[in-house]
Every structure is written in structure tokens, then in C-alpha cells.
């Protein structure tokens, strides 16, 4: 596009020059042609052609016809796009805009002020504060509105400029006094964004806003409602008053207003269970109306909220289950959410109807929907166990002739059998009708193999089915290989003569496997079997307890945290915002006493793993320890044994030693057997001495700010030291609003609770959690820039953690390159 653009550019340049010099700048004809040229320029600008070289001409041309608002608007648009690229001309631009901020026309004053605040140039702040202050006092609301937002823009550039000028005080005053609702709304925005959310905690502020709510634009109403949901009413009476006043908001045509009202009501009544229940009843209808809006996107957002509510209070929506039946033309993301809601609301009464409906979707042409429907039926079978016909339907899916339906159904039947072993008998008859060739998907194969392994005694040809599948051992996914391995061993305990060949083949293949997990498990089983049948059976084939719940299910605690952030993306992503919103660059620490800001900045910084799953992983570690305790073999044995193991296993001699373990591996030859024994030797030896007392930290600890504060007060000081900062670290501390350093620390398991301050002093609060322990370590680090020194205070539940952590923290400071 270059040559043509240049041609056009040249042409425009000439036209601009002519227009600037010739003719009467005020004549209509000239103004009209100027507008045409400007339009052309903006069109080019929009399609991505660089017009910045015309900066000077455009300015001259527009200034000559300064009375024309249309031209002026286009000029502002142009300069705010290209100001950054033309630092030489910036001063000229600023002068022009500052002058226009004093224009007689309020529209121009507002526009100029807005453009001025949007310029993305260095050292802008010194020019901004005075026009903004003036704008705040302007007689016209349009200008005041713009000025208020200007304050926020400055705040983001340099919070001190705003704090020093006590502008926030002015805004607080304006919020209470100003007659224009949009001005008030913008004041609210700024105060909230500037970390002054506590401005809305007093009755004197909140009640007038609520009483005025009808004056506000629909967007500002959302804001008011949101602000009120952070307010603590003095008592139940006040809660009722607030809800009565705001009840009609639930009938507003703006879906955002309705949802904000819903949130407010839910949060106001959270400590009043009976009223909370009434509120849930009240909001049911409005929410259903929102869902039936013309736009699927809105419906999607509403459904995400429905799902959360349905999971919290399933009984509430159990009558309205037909609302969540899918419609033919809905996009798949809607259908998928609806299925989840149907699962959540299914109870003994409606389960039959819901499952009947879901069975329709199983026959749908949309494969994704059909799969999800099978899963949904499986989930309902787990949740609502004693309703007749559900398990039968699920078993019916095994035999629909569609491979993917069968595959999904096998997985669900497996889960059902894990959860309700007593239902196994009914399932086995249907499952045994499946031939392994019907299953193509790894998950389904693994599930099928699991069933064969656990209930092989009741399935006549289980060993042969497994054998057929084991024939393809190397070609399967790791998950299937692991399942085959376990199933072979389990079944071996039950039907030894039929399974010996299978076991030999599988163990040989597994121990030669390149996948670490498969290899290790194969070796573990081999050694367990070697150590003794009884011990092995106790570990591998221990009678399975029925599962109470599946780990994939979202914990109630996590849901509560999401509920706290109702009406935000957290609900849609089903995770607390801390997991997807980048931490705020700094929590405001200025003008507050030492620890108060930690409480004020309500977003827990860093983190990402909820505590539930962290606990789980700790538990898992423990479990794996139990498994190995008989013959602990922490490390993989060195090269030689693998070669010995890899030798093809000859068929075991019938009779005699049933186990025939020496035959299973190493082919009975003296050398091979010795190698295997040698390999096993070190593994069975005494456990290695524990490593030197260094501290391992959990990767992403999570701690609520309030919790942090409470612990900080309660915990003893474990260590205190000062440490010099290398230049690189000091730079990282300063750069990017502390983010670089915090990320560096986070990579080492040290999460940031809050950070802030201004040169030459910065203050940081970190927290960490030793892996696998419940203890906490809290850190305060005060960095002084002149001396490049950090004064660090470490507090910990266990004072012994102090020194190792201090060492770790020093390394963390020193290793930033």
C-alpha cells in the first residue's frame, strides 16, 4: 500500500497547505473542504496508514478555523492518536488544549479537557492538574464529569499528584453535593479505583445515593448498587428498608441493573438465612427473564450465575427445571451450561424427567452435546442414586451403536461402580457385552480395563479381553497402560491360572516402558510381588472403599469465594478473580498505618491454587509414601536392570511355583536373574538420609488479607536481618510498579500480599507456606533505595522455619539477574 498511500499523503498535504494559506478561514466553503480532508485523514488513520507526518499541517489548518466544533473534534482525535509520536509538537498541542479548556462553550471545554488527559506523553502531569481543578469547579456538568474522570487518569499516571493535591477530598465532597447524577457516579468510580472504597461504608453516603438512584443513568445505577453491596447495614430493619426501596430495580430493562440488584440482595441477606431464602425466591423470575433475552451472550452470563446459585441452593430451581431444557438452535456453549445446571438441580422428584430429556440429547446430531448429555446422566446417577431407571438408561447408552456414546457411557459406568459398589452387579451384565474393539478413546479403554480389573471375577472372559488389549500395550496412551498394568495384577490375585501369561507380558512391557510413571509402577508391582503375594495383595488389591466424592468437584469453599464476587467474570470462569486478574500494581500504602492497607486491598495477590487442592496434593504425597513403605525405592535403578528386564518373557512353566516370578523377568537365565536381583538390591536398601535442612515452599500459597493481618499480629518473629540489594534487584523492585520483583519471588513460592510506597522507601509484604505443612511464613521487607538495603522481618508459626527461610529469601534477592 506504500506507493499509493504516499501519493494520497502528498495530495492531502498539498490540500492542507492550500487550505491553510488561501481563502477566508471562516468562510463556509473553506470549512467544509477542511472537514472533508480531515475526514479523509481519519479514515486513513483508521485503516492503519500512518498519518503522523501531517501533524503540523493539521494543527495549523484547524487552528485557523477554531470556531468549527466538527473540525475541532476531528483535530482532537488526530492529536490524541499521534501526540506520542511527535514529542516536539506536544507542547504546542498542550497549549492549544489548555486554551480550549477555557473556551466559552462547555462542550469544547469538556472535549479539550478529555483530550488533554488522554495524551500519552511524558511529563504531562504538570500541565494537567490546574485544568482539572478548574474543571471540577466548572458550572457545567459535562465539564465536571470529564474533569472527575481526568482525576482518575492522573491517578494512574502518578497517584501522589492526586493525593498531594487532596483532590480525593474534593471528589468526596462533590459526591455528596453535586446535582448532576453522572458527576456523582464518576466520583464514585474514581474513589473506588483510588482505593477509597471505604468511603461507601457509612450510612450518610450510602442512603442518599440509594434514594437518588432513579436519577442515575442505567450504568451508574449498577455502580450505586455495587457500592451498596459493600455496605454493612446497621441491622435487619435497615436491610429490609434498602430492599424495599430497590425492589423495583429487578424490573429494569437493563440486564446489568437487574443482576447488580440480585447481587446486592443476596449479599445483604447473607447472614439472615430465612430472608436469604425469600430473596432467592424473589430473584428467580427476573433471572429467568434475563435468560430469555435475545442475545445468547447475555444468556450465557446469566446461566453462569444460575449455575452458581443452583449449586448453592439446588432445591430452589428444582421445580423450574424445564427452563433449562435445551433449544434446538442455541449455541453449544449455552447448551453445555444448561446441562450442568440440569445436573445441579436434579433431585429425587425431577430426576426421571430430567434424565428422559437428557436421553433425547444423547441421540442428537451434535456430538459434543451427546457426549455431555451422557456425562450429565452419569452425574445424576451418582447424585440421585435411588431413583429408578436412571442407571438403566445409562447402561442403555452402552449399546446405542454410536462409538462415542458408548465410550462416554463406559467412563460414567466406571465412576458409578466406584461410587456405589452395590450397583456393580447390574452394570456388569451390560458392560460384559462390550468388545474392546468397540472402544477407541483412551479414557473409555482405561475405564473398561478398570472394570475388568475390579470385577473380573464376574466377567467370564475378563482375562482374555485384557489379554487382547494388552497385545496393543505399546500403542496405547500412558493412562491406558497404567490401567492395564493395575488391572492385570488385580485380576491375577483373583484368577491366577488364567492371568499369569497376561501378567508376565504386561509387567515385562511396563518395566521396559519409556514413560516414567508406567515404568515405576511396573517395577513397584514387580517388587511387591517379589516380596510376597500377601503383602502385594494388601497393597494393590485392597478392597476398594466406595468413593464419597470425586476430586474434580468444585469445593464448597471455592464456590463461596466465587459467590463473594457475584456478578463478575469470576462467576463465568468459576474461579476467584485472583486466579485470572493480574495483581494490582501496588496496594495503596501511603498515609495509612503499617498494616491497615493490607486489609484495605481486598484482592489476595498472587496465588492461584486454592487451598483445597494444595491440601489434596499433600495428602497424595502421603499416600504414595504408604505404598512404597514396604520396600522404599525412591530412585530409578541404574541402566543394567532395564536391559535385563527388557528381555522377552517366555511363557511361565505351568504348575509348580504359581507365581513363577523368576521366570517372569530375566528369562530364568542366571545372568539375567542376577542382574535383576542386583537392580532390586539397592532399592530395597535403607532409605537415603534426608537432604540438608533446606526449605521447600508450596508453589503458590493463598492467604486472605484479613488472615494475613491476624497472623501477623499473632506470630512470633522468627528472624530479622538487613540485606544489601544487588543493582539488578533494586531495579526490579522499582520497575514496573514492583511487579518484576514480585513475579521473581512468586516463582520461588513467595507470594506478594501487598506492595507499595514511594521512592526512596518501598514496603513489601510477602507470605509463603512450606510444602506439605500447614505453617505459614510472613515477611515484611522495607527497601531503602539510597543504601540499597532491605530490612527484612520474618514471622512464622514455627520459629525453626525462620533461618532456612531467611537463607532462601536472601538467595531470592541475590539471584535476580
Amino acid at each position, binding site marked *: 500500500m506504500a506507493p499509493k498511500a504516499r501519493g494520497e499523503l502528498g495530495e492531502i498535504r498539498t490540500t492542507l497547505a492550500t487550505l491553510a494559506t488561501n481563502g477566508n478561514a471562516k468562510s463556509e466553503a473553506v470549512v467544509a473542504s477542511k472537514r472533508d480532508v480531515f475526514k479523509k485523514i481519519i479514515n486513513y488513520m483508521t485503516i492503519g496508514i500512518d498519518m503522523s507526518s501531517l501533524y503540523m499541517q493539521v494543527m495549523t489548518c484547524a487552528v485557523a478555523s477554531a470556531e468549527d466544533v466538527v473540525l475541532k473534534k476531528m483535530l482532537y482525535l488526530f492529536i490524541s492518536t499521534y501526540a506520542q509520536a511527535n514529542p516536539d509538537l506536544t507542547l504546542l498541542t498542550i497549549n492549544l488544549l489548555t486554551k480550549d479548556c477555557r473556551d466559552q462553550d462547555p462542550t469544547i471545554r469538556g472535549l479539550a479537557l*478529555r483530550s488533554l488527559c488522554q495524551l500519552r506523553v511524558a511529563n504531562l502531569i504538570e500541565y494537567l492538574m490546574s485544568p482539572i481543578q478548574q474543571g471540577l469547579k466548572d458550572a*457545567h456538568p459535562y465539564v465536571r464529569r470529564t474533569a472527575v474522570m481526568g482525576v482518575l487518569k492522573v491517578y494512574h499516571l502518578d497517584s501522589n499528584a492526586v493525593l498531594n493535591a487532596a483532590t480525593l477530598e474534593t471528589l468526596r465532597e462533590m459526591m455528596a453535593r453535586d*446535582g448532576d447524577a453522572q458527576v456523582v457516579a464518576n466520583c464514585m468510580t474514581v474513589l473506588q479505583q483510588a482505593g477509597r472504597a471505604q468511603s461507601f461504608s457509612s450510612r450518610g453516603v450510602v442512603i442518599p445515593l440509594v434514594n437518588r438512584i432513579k436519577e442515575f443513568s442505567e450504568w451508574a445505577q*449498577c455502580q450505586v448498587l455495587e457500592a451498596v453491596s459493600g455496605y454493612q447495614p446497621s441491622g435487619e430493619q435497615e436491610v429490609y428498608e434498602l430492599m424495599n426501596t430497590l425492589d423495583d430495580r429487578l424490573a429494569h*430493562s437493563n440486564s446489568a441493573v437487574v443482576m447488580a440488584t440480585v447481587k446486592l440482595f443476596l449479599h445483604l441477606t447473607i447472614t439472615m438465612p430465612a430472608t436469604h431464602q425469600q430473596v432467592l425466591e424473589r430473584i428467580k423470575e427476573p433471572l429467568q427473564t434475563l435468560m430469555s433475552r435475545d442475545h445468547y451472550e447475555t444468556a450465557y452470563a446469566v446461566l453462569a450465575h444460575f449455575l452458581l446459585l443452583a449449586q448453592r441452593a439446588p432445591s430452589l430451581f428444582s421445580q423450574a427445571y424445564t427452563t433449562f*431444557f435445551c*433449544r*434446538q438452535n442455541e449455541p453449544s456453549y449455552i447448551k453445555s451450561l444448561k446441562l450442568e445446571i440440569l445436573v445441579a438441580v436434579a433431585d429425587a422428584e425431577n430426576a426421571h424427567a430430567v434424565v428422559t430429556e437428557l436421553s433425547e440429547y444423547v441421540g442428537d446430531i451434535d456430538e459434543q452435546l451427546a457426549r455431555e448429555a451422557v456425562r450429565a446422566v452419569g452425574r445424576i446417577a451418582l447424585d440421585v442414586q435411588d431413583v429408578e431407571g436412571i442407571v438403566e438408561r445409562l447402561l442403555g447408552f452402552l449399546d446405542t451403536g454410536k462409538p462415542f456414546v458408548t465410550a462416554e457411557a463406559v467412563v460414567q459406568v466406571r465412576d458409578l461402580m466406584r461410587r456405589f459398589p452395590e450397583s456393580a452387579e447390574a452394570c456388569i451384565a451390560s458392560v460384559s457385552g462390550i468388545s474392546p474393539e468397540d472402544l477407541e478413546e483412551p479414557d473409555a479403554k482405561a475405564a473398561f480395563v478398570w472394570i475388568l480389573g475390579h470385577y473380573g471375577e464376574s466377567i467370564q472372559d475378563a482375562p482374555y479381553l485384557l489379554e487382547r488389549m494388552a497385545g496393543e500395550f505399546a500403542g496405547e496412551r500412558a493412562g491406558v497402560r497404567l490401567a492395564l498394568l493395575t488391572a492385570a495384577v488385580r485380576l491375577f490375585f483373583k484368577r491366577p491360572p488364567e492371568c499369569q501369561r497376561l501378567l508376565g507380558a504386561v509387567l515385562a512391557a511396563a518395566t521396559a516402558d519409556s514413560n516414567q510413571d508406567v515404568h515405576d509402577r511396573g517395577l513397584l508391582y514387580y517388587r511387591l510381588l517379589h516380596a510376597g503375594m500377601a503383602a502385594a495383595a494388601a497393597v494393590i488389591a485392597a478392597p476398594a472403599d466406595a468413593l464419597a466424592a470425586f476430586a474434580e468437584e468444585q469445593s464448597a469453599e471455592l464456590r463461596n469465594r466465587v459467590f463473594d464476587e457475584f456478578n*463478575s467474570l469470576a462467576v463465568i470462569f468459576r474461579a476467584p478473580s485472583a486466579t485470572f*486478574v493480574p495483581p494490582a500494581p501496588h496496594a495503596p500504602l501511603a498515609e495509612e498505618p503499617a498494616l491497615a492497607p493490607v486489609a484495605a486491598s481486598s484482592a489476595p495477590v498472587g496465588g492461584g491454587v486454592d487451598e483445597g487442592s494444595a491440601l489434596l496434593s499433600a495428602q497424595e504425597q502421603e499416600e504414595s509414601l504408604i505404598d512404597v513403605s514396604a520396600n522404599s525405592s525412591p530412585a530409578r535403578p541404574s541402566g543394567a536392570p532395564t536391559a535385563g528386564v527388557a528381555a522377552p518373557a517366555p511363557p511361565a512353566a505351568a504348575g509348580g511355583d504359581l507365581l513363577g516370578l523368576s521366570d517372569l523377568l530375566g528369562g530364568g537365565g542366571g545372568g539375567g536373574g542376577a542382574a535383576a536381583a542386583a537392580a532390586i538390591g539397592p532399592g530395597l536398601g535403607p532409605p537415603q538420609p534426608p537432604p540438608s535442612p533446606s526449605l521447600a515452599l508450596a508453589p503458590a500459597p493463598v492467604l486472605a488479607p484479613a488472615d494475613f493481618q491476624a497472623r501477623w499480629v499473632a506470630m512470633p518473629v522468627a528472624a530479622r536481618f538487613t540485606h544489601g540489594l544487588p543493582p539488578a534487584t533494586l531495579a526490579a523492585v522499582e520497575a514496573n510498579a514492583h511487579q518484576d520483583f514480585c513475579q521473581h519471588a512468586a516463582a520461588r513460592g513467595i507470594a506478594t500480599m501487598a506492595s507499595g510506597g514511594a521512592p526512596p522507601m518501598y514496603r513489601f509484604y510477602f507470605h509463603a507456606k512450606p510444602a506439605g505443612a500447614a505453617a505459614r511464613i510472613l515477611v515484611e521487607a522495607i527497601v531503602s533505595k539510597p543504601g540499597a538495603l532491605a530490612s527484612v522481618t520474618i514471622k512464622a508459626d514455627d520459629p525453626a522455619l525462620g533461618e532456612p527461610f531467611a537463607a532462601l529469601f536472601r538467595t531470592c534477592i541475590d539471584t535476580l539477574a
Partner: protein
Amino acid sequence: MASACSALYFLNLKGDVLINRTYRDDVERNLATAFRSHIINTRDGDNVASLTPVRILGPCSFLYMRASDVYILAVTKSNANAMLAFQFMTNMVTLLKSYFGGEFSEQSIKNNFVLIYELLDETLDFGYPQIVDPSILKQYIFQKGFITEAAKAKREAEAQNATLQVTGAVGWRKDNIKYKKNEVFLDIVEQVNMLMSNKGTVLRCDVNGKIVMKVFLSGMPDVKLGLNDKLEDVTFHQCVNLGRFNTEKVVSFVPPDGEFELMKYRCQEGISRPFSVLPIVNELGRTRLEVNVKLKANFSAKLYALNLLVTVPVPENTAHADIHTSQGKAKYDAKKHALVWKVKRYQGMAEHALTASVELIATTRERKPWGRPPIAMAFQVPMFSASGLRVQYLKVWEKSSYKVDKWVRKVCRSGDYNIRI
């Protein structure tokens, strides 16, 4: 709380940026590329998560919706309010439509860059919604250059006026409107959705309705609308006095000038289904299918349904269909794999039927049974209300007490009207 939108994009279906505005510097400039490669052109179409209208890419959340051939995309780095974002984008489309003469498309955007920039600047400031009401914005957006030198004197006064109205008691109406002939048009538009099982049980049936008004009234009229109490859940235009509705069930309002949507409602109880359908579809062996669909109109014989369309799905391997209907025309549509039956004008209370004998090609691919998708119906019935909503009165008061011509219409349209077979 922080629901600031960092940038707003308009893109065409290929993912090329038509126009965009970045409101905050906290996001990268090349977001459109990410949107294009990860959302529009994504290959993993099977993955439902990839199709949802809210996505996370890197540190940013993308919220997008499609309107005709344009994607509107809002990008935010905060834990934004999704309801608000989608509502805002919806209103934005309405706003642009009102400027582009009812059209919203890639072309209309390309023709109006300068105007859109102006609107984008007025509607969002630093990413926070300001004013999106067309009737107000139109008074102080000067695109098309209709302000001439001669009008300049008036301009300031007007601007003063316009901005004041934004927050006045009735922000949605100017006070010096005059019409020679005062008229009010009220349309009740209902969409009836139904799902019936193959055994004839109604699994789901609901009505989504709205009342759309066109008001050409002088001065500051006060309008009262009385409705029979049939509605389960209602939302109103901001002009409606909600308190009065809750206490007296009267919809009372000072209407905006011109066309607007007065209210939306929804009901599930006591719905009269315009059509009952009795389908019989029998598979006779591998190669034949017998179809018999009986249709009955349940509305008064004085009314007519227009443009009735019944789509009866048949298997993909259909070779030929021999169809008879007692009214209208029917044929086999090979593209849709369906028998399509059209009746231009279907009288109330009438019963008609379609019978067809469908021949299938014997296929070698055996293991794919026919999914038996539901029969779908499309129609509209003028002057019929499936919810039973009636206008009991429509009164207009104005201090000059002029004569008003009032027109009330109703229409019932099909939404998802499906019958399983």
C-alpha cells in the same frame, strides 16, 4: 467493581479490525491479532470452551458478541462485570443502528469512522460507561457537519440544553415537541416457544413478549396503559414509573419521542398454543419411511396464520418422497434433509395433514442410526396473543388536551416451536 473496559474493537468476520478505541494503556496494542488467531480462526471447533463469548488470553479477558457481520469485542484486565459488558455492547449496537438508519454492518461502520470515534468517546470515558441513550446523544454529536456558521449562535445554547437534559427529571424527552397529528401506535409482539415430546406431552412452553410503541405526541404527555394481569415477569423501559406498576398494576409513563420498547415480559402459565401437532413417523425396514403429520390451529376461526412453514426432518439417505397435503405445498428439500410444507394462509380452527412416503437409499454404512431430529414450525398469527395479554385501556393526558389517534396491534410469532418424532 472495577469493570473498566480497556479497549473496544469492531472487527469483521475475518477478524480484521474495522475500528477500535483504546481507553487505557494497560493492554497491548496487538490484541486483535490474538482475537483473530485464538478465537475466530481457532481450529478446535469441538471444544466447547473455545466458543464461549468470554475468554481469557494471557492477562486479558475478552468479551465479544456478534451483530450481523461484525464482531464487537471488549477487552479488560480487571474482574469485569460481564452482564454490564454485554448489555453495553448491545446498547452500543442499538445506538449505532439509530445513527445508520437502522442498519449495522461492516459497510456502515466503514462509512462512518469519524462519527463512531465521536460516539466511542462519549459513551465510554477511561473505560467506564457514560451515556448510551441515542435520543440524548443525538443532540450533542455533530457529525455530518450540520452545524453551519449561521447556526453557530444557536449551538452553544443547544449544547447547554442537551447536556442538561442528560440528567433532567425526564432525560429521555425534550419538552418542546410538536406534532400536527397526535398518534400512538402500540404493538404487542409475542414469541411462543414450545417443545413437545413424541408422545404428545408438552415439555416446555413459554412466551417472550414485548410491547413496542411509536409515539408522536406533542408536549409532555402522560400515558397510562392498563393490562389484564397475565404477566409473570416484566421489565420496563426507564420511563415507566415502577412504583405505580407494583402497587396499582398500571403502566404509567412519560414516553420518549418516536419508537421505543416499552416493556418486555415472559410467561409460562396458561399459554394457548397456536398449533397442535400429531406426528407419526414410522421406519418400515431399511428403505422406507412413512410420515403423517396432522396439524390443528387452536386460535379463533376469524384469524389466520401467515407463512406457515413445517419442516419434517428425514434421514440423509433419502432418495425420493411422495408427499400429499390437504392444503399448501410441500416438497423434499435435499439440502436440509427435510420435507418442507408451506401454507401461505392457514385459517383458525382448521385441521390439515401431510402424508408422505419416503424412499431411502440402502447404504453400506450401517452403524449410524437416524437421529430423528424434531419437527420445526415457523408461523405468525396476527391479532393473536398466546399469553392472553390484552390491552384494557390506553390513555393519554396532556395539559393542552389534544385529540389522540391510538392504534393497537398484536402479533404472535413462532420462536423455537418443535415437536419430537
